[in-house]
């Protein structure tokens, strides 16, 4: 895939507040890209910088190889779906969708109606042209916003937390629809979200942002399985942390993990430049297992005491204490047929696998 958007050393100040710190980023043609992070991390600012609503304090934004510094938002090949959707309440659905065509001299007026029809069809709102826009439901407004942006055939569609205003069911439905839509029209989507699950489900690649910086940029699986820092690991999913010692780095890396003992992991699981000395290891709840009677661990096992049980229906989450580990470890277990739910205080064996370990 070719590069579409390149950000080089982008800085943004609001007075003394440093909103974006040296952002370097390349977004490719046709990919579904997400900016993920907690509120205030700068993800929306970054999106607005790409759209042109915010100028930069330093660095450059290039779209299709062209420097965008002096290009106002109305001249950029980007279109946006706003968090509030910003559907013009004084215009009908059709007029909203056709809004951007007014300034497009290259499109003949006679084509407008057909284009509106096509755009509404794309988002599943056939025949809504003459509806009053303020009478639409949240999900419908979002579709109007999408149609209004897509009718202009932008190179990039920017989506600012587009699903946050919808209820859970509608949100999940729209996630799937957005993915389908993106595959169908094949243009680049850039999504801003604070919902890690949403980002994992929808994206080809995700940039996780903290305090104006990109913490990690990877595809969803790498991001989940190999987070490069504790804060990324904590923000995406849940992770247990255990103190450990790195005792050898020749060939494989040798680790002495509190409560778990000594094991060896390949270099890919360890950050570059790791040295002998104290470290932390992370391990996801679903990669640990409670060993019920008659079960044996595939790799290693150790003993633990059940500290807390949270029953979720399909899953049970156990907090267990392991000797020499300061914090309780969380284990996620599927409630398979015949598998009992343990009580607080029960002694149990737990199984673990060194391939699931991440070293920080």
């Amino acid at each position, binding site marked *: 895939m070719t590069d579409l958007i390149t950000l080089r050393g982008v800085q943004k100040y609001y007075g003394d507040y440093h909103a974006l710190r040296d952002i370097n980023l390349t977004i490719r043609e046709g990919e579904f890209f997400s900016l993920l992070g907690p509120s205030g991390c700068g993800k929306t600012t970054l999106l607005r910088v790409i*759209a042109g*609503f915010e100028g930069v304090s330093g660095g450059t934004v290039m779209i299709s190889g062209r420097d965008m510094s002096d290009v*106002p*938002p*109305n*001249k950029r090949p*980007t*279109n*946006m779906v*706003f*968090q*509030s959707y*910003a559907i*013009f*309440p*004084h215009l009908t659905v059709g007029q909203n969708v056709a*809004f*951007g065509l*007014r*300034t*497009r001299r290259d499109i003949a007026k006679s084509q407008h109606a057909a284009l509106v029809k096509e755009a509404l069809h794309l988002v599943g709102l056939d025949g809504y042209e003459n509806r009053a826009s*303020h009478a639409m439901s949240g999900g419908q407004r979002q579709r109007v916003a999408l149609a*209004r*942006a897509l009718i*202009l055939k932008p190179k990039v569609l920017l989506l600012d937390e587009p699903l946050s205003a919808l209820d859970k069911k509608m949100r999940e439905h729209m996630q799937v629809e957005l993915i389908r839509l993106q595959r169908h029209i094949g243009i680049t989507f850039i999504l801003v979200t604070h919902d890690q699950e949403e980002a994992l489900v929808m994206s080809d690649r995700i940039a996780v942002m903290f305090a104006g910086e990109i913490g990690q940029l990877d595809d969803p699986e790498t991001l989940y399985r190999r987070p490069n820092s504790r804060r990324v690991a904590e923000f995406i999913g849940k992770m247990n942390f255990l103190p450990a010692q790195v005792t050898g780095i020749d060939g494989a890396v040798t680790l002495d993990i509190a409560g778990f003992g000594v094991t060896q992991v390949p270099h890919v699981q360890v950050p570059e430049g790791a040295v002998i000395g104290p470290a932390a290891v992370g391990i996801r709840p679903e990669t640990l297992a409670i060993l019920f009677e008659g079960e044996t661990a595939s790799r290693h096992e150790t003993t633990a005491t059940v500290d807390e049980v949270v029953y979720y229906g399909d899953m049970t989450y156990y907090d267990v204490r392991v000797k020499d580990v300061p914090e309780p470890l969380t284990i996620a277990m599927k409630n398979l047929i015949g598998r009992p739910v343990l009580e607080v205080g029960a002694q149990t064996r737990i199984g673990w696998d060194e391939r699931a370990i991440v070293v920080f």
Partner: protein
Amino acid sequence: MSLRVYVIAYLIFLYAPIALLPVFAFNDGTIIAFPLSGFTTQWFTELTQNAALHAAVRNSLVIAACTAVFATILGLCAARAGAMSDFRGKKGITGFIMLPLVLPEIIVAVSLLVVLRQVLGLSLGNWTIIMAHVLICTPFSIAILNGAFAALDPAMEEAALDLGESRWSAFRLVTLPLVMPGIVSSMLIAFTISLDEFIIAFFLTGANPTMPVYIWGLLRFPSSLPVIMALGTILVALSILLLTIAEIFRRRGVRRAGGTDTGGFL
């Protein structure tokens, strides 16, 4: 319950003077006092024949119309700036523009008089009153238009920009229609204030009196009082009409911009 009784008594206190207006306007007697002496429409007929009054009314209408337009333009500038980015000193500047709201009107009147007459040596006329009225009406316009702009989603204009419109056309196509009810409401309020304003007009009026200045002159002649009552009745009816229209537009504006109504002109 006793609170309700009190509030009703208060409303009676508020409306008492106005309620008397039509009573004496249709009373067939030259003395404005009880007992009443009979029904007549004579005072309304006299109104239609008073050329000096007609001139004063025309004057006031011109002044009020100009004031409404200029105050609303200034109010639009301030309210739009208010909805945009903050900068150092913005609060202070806005406070200063709103100052005439609490400044005693006589201070505005005499200070303008001093500058116009004594310092600049200009002669007074309708335009001097318009200038002063714009000054005191602008804060009201700002208050009304602030409400209209506050109810407006800032993403609306950005969406228009994003869809290819220039800054000006985004304002014209999206913001302006959405705040239009606020603009109408602001013009009507400014018009009403200017039409009724006496304290400043009395100082700054030139050869042609405004309607309140003319009424002030009549108040000294007992024989002309019934005619004033008739005029007052018409003015009250007109004011209520204008205010009702203003209120309807203000509400429509808040609704159209998608906000919820918090009520009130201030």
